[in-house]
């Protein structure tokens, strides 16, 4: 089985988010970047599916050379080779087109990626990739099993869950529960240095949507403390002041 895993390079989850240039750019100075946590789940699942010589994993990233340490981390975790499309990933549409263009004649059986990235929180790339490649997609799966030529997945729906069977190839967004997380071991870290990382130049894509600026949430007002012995006071405040009950 040939698996393509798409990874984003995102600020570590503990990062305090600030912006520069009149709030038009994310301030990356001093920020530690990591493999997007949901993409790590995709990679962990890909490793489980291809273990013991049952296939190969290519990781693909659209980004600049500064993302190479993140890509090496994915190689150390267990991917066999990596591809970096050398461009600023400025929109989901741009990224999806780059990946689709790269993947279209490589006959991957499965394309996995996290259900969203924790920076822009789009869950756009999976669906766009599916559409561009003309194959099925599920934006967020909680379970994933290969059954012959098909893949059976579970996805969350409002108030429940749905079990689906899709023909391969398919694009699947992964969320928590899909796989046990894998972390690089010493052998992985050593071998990652010599695994191939191919740099590919981007194709031109028409821009349809772009971020023009950022805002940070307004700070909340001061907290009102209620004594633990007077819960009815909290109820009163929630009713008459906050008007939420």
């Amino acid at each position, binding site marked *: 089985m040939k698996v393509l895993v798409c990874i984003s390079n995102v600020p570590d*989850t*503990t990062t305090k*988010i600030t*912006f520069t240039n009149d709030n038009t750019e994310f301030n990356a100075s001093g920020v530690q970047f990591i493999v997007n946590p*949901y993409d790590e789940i995709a990679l962990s699942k890909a490793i489980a599916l291809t273990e013991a010589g049952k296939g190969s994993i290519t990781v693909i990233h659209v980004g600049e050379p500064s993302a190479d340490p993140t890509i090496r981390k994915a190689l150390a975790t267990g991917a066999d080779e990596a591809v970096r499309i050398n461009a600023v990933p400025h929109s*989901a*549409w741009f990224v999806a087109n780059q990946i689709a263009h790269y993947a279209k004649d490589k006959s991957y059986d499965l394309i996995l990626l996290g259900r969203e990235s*924790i920076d*822009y*929180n789009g*869950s*756009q*790339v*999976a*669906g766009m990739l599916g*559409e*561009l490649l*003309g194959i*099925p*997609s*599920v*934006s*967020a799966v*909680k379970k994933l099993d290969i059954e012959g030529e098909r893949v059976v997945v579970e996805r969350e*729906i*409002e*108030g*429940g*869950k*749905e*079990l*689906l*069977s*899709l*023909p391969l190839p398919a694009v699947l967004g992964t969320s928590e*529960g899909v796989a046990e997380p894998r972390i690089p071991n010493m052998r992985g870290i050593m071998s990652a240095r010599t695994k191939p990382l191919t740099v590919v130049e981007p194709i031109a894509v*028409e821009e*349809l*949507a*772009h*971020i*023009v*600026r*950022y*805002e*940070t*949430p307004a700070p*909340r007002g001061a*907290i*009102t*403390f209620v*004594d*633990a012995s007077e*819960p009815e006071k*909290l*109820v009163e*405040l929630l009713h008459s002041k*906050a008007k*939420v*009950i």
Partner: protein
Amino acid sequence: MSVLVYVENTEGKFKKTVYELISYAKSIADLYGSQLTALSIGHVADDELKSLGRYGVSKILRVDSEQFKSFVNQAYASVIASAAKHTNANTVVISNSFSGKGLAPRVAAKLGAGLADGAIDLPTIDGNTLSIRKTAFSGKAYAITELTSAIKVIALTPNSYDVKENPTDSSIEDFAPENEEHDFDTIIKEIVRASDKITLPDAEIVVSAGRGLKGPENWGIIEDLAEVLGAATACSKPVSDAGWRPHSEHVGQTGIVISPNLYVAIGISGAIQHLAGVSSSKTIVVINKDPEAPFFKVADYGIVGDAFEVVPKITQAIKAYKG
């Protein structure tokens, strides 16, 4: 030029989030001075469809045949794109629900449309450019996205726009969509729905608990409080990682990001990753025995005390208040 809104039904019924979505789409149609058309796929009774007119829908396109009985991402995306062309829509509005998140990017790609997902308020329109605000960095910031394509797709975050009545005469029209060869390759094997449970993304009130509860056996007081409030239950990441509660209840940066009217956090210290997922809640109540818990810094109301003593008392007080 018109606005098309896809209205998702849940076993033939429309939920409140659908009325929010229509109210929102109607406001966009008003900005353009155009009509609002709703698209319903699957079986919904006429009376239920007619209820959409209360919120400003002029025309309802209905696709109700056996092959569309249950949701198939690719097939539904084709229907929506086909209806957008049929109604000459310049804006397509979809809910950013579990299913909507799968549909919106496919619909946008089919139409060559720019997509703004996770939208949280009305766009501003300047000529052909539409600007819209969405949450980014898992609630730590907002991003203003500009859509410059001829057709635009917007996916609205549930519970971020108020329902507005706008009684309009609406007509129902059967619509025959164009589908593609592989649209029905995906097979739905099973749907399991716990009908009595309020789901997290829909919930107006969420009661959430963390490691302070000490173990899964202590969740009874959380469920009791949630029940009297008509709330959904949630938890912090350490709790779902430990298997005390299912992953589907995990709210935070790497879990579900929610924006209920009221979020009650019990025994959760308030790590930055957790705060990111709940910071757009309208009102936050924090109950924690540690007065130094960082969560108190971003809360509206706080009680310093032992959850095992305080929570049952609050439950009683709410019961008394509700009579």
